[in-house]
């Protein structure tokens, strides 16, 4: 009587059969931001059996304006951890698989092959093209959503014989022609509208209910709630991709490499020589620090020259926030060095090596 999904299983076009198909479904959501969160929250609520989560960012203040899963106390935490916890609390029956990485040319085929439907909830072109090409190679449908200001796009690419992302946008725009990574901003509620529409497409693909938005690009204009659809066709060249490109541009919008505290600890234990900059204040540093760390507080970073003999430099702070900023600043100043931000910072390191 109090069946959890009774409000939807009662629907003639969905029913218990639809629910059973959701339970069997495996969906990977790439990106835990404005689009990925509503997709995950609704699919989890509705009873999709297996959900894959992939992201490596931490929760930042400017995320809160549209990423409604996060609370203020989550600032600085790994998105992956926060989302995993909240989704489990929301529906303990869902199998949640976490992928603590960004999507790369190296891992894309391995990860994506395990899922039935992929959701493109990223914020940058390189990852969108990588998702497209991987899905074409593996013959997986992917549900696309993207935003610009008050506008949004939704479509389902590579669904059965349907067209792909490259059938509308054959080549990746160069970085100076179209703003990347939300540089242009987005009204907070727009990703909610687009993300929920993406979740609906996932449900239609998994259950076979209704008409999948394949071969049509939905254009939403938030200023007047106008919804248009553009029809487009498959271009066989784009359906015949057999391997990934040699090169997709850096995936992380903020272009900072990162390393988990655990992996960093393994490197420390390997005995290799490490260059580690701790960007906390002198006081914090004096309270506790890793023995190989060199202290350069964040606000002094621009005055202190870095020895360019280093190939790799790790950067740490208390939680991973200031070190991210520092790594970004250093990466711009010293392009010949590779900087890694240590995720979770001293907070995580203290747990690993108390």
């Amino acid at each position, binding site marked *: 009587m109090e069946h959890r999904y009774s409000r939807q299983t009662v629907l003639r076009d969905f029913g218990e059969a639809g629910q059973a198909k959701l339970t069997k479904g495996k969906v990977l959501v790439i*990106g835990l*931001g*404005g*689009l*990925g969160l509503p997709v995950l929250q609704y699919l989890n609520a509705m009873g999709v059996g297996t959900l894959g989560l992939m992201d490596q960012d931490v929760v930042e203040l400017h995320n809160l304006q549209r990423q409604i899963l996060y609370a203020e106390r989550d600032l600085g935490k790994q998105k992956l951890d926060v989302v995993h916890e909240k989704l489990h609390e929301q529906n303990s029956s869902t199998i949640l698989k976490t992928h603590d990485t960004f999507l790369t040319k190296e891992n894309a085929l391995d990860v994506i092959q395990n899922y039935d439907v992929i959701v493109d*909830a*990223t*914020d*940058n*072109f390189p990852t*969108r093209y990588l998702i497209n090409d991987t899905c074409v190679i593996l013959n997986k449908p992917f549900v696309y*959503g*993207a*935003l*610009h*200001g008050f*506008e*949004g*796009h939704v479509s389902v690419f590579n669904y059965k014989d349907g067209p792909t992302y490259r*059938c*509308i*946008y*054959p*080549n*990746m*725009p*160069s970085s*100076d*022609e*179209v*703003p*990347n*990574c*939300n540089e*242009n901003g*987005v009204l907070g509620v727009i*990703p909610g509208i687009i993300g929920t529409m993406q979740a609906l497409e996932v449900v239609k693909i998994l259950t076979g209910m209704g008409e999948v938005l394949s071969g049509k*690009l939905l*254009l939403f*204009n938030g*200023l007047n709630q106008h919804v*248009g*659809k*553009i*029809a*487009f*066709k498959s271009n066989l060249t784009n359906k015949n991709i057999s391997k990934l490109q040699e090169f997709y541009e850096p995936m992380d919008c903020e272009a900072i490499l990162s390393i988990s505290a655990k992996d960093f600890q393994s490197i420390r234990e390997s005995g290799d020589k490490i260059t580690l900059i701790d960007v906390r204040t002198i006081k914090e540093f004096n309270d506790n620090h890793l023995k190989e760390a060199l202290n350069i507080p964040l606000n002094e970073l621009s005055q202190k020259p870095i020895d360019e003999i280093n190939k790799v430099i790790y950067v740490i702070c208390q939680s991973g926030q200031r070190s991210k900023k520092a790594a970004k600043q250093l990466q711009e100043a010293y392009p010949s060095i590779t900087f890694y931000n240590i995720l979770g910072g001293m907070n995580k390191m203290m747990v690993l090596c108390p």
Partner: protein
Amino acid sequence: MTILLFGITKDIVGSSTLSVPTSSATGRRIPRTVKELKQFLGETYPELNKLSSLAVAVNNSYATDDEAINSYDEIALIPPVSGG
């Protein structure tokens, strides 16, 4: 003919629609294909020329560069967008 603008094209033009004259009163050549329309618009808004991956829809269908256009067609410029 009226052109609907999306994404960065709207920002470049500063409006969500654009009107293109369909008589040659101004002496300028009237665009007869999608490609000519892009060139025509690029003269007024040079930043549009930078868009290598600009989709154009004619009457709600994706159109290739050589597709013919008429004054009564509904045209939309739909550049890729990246936000998420």
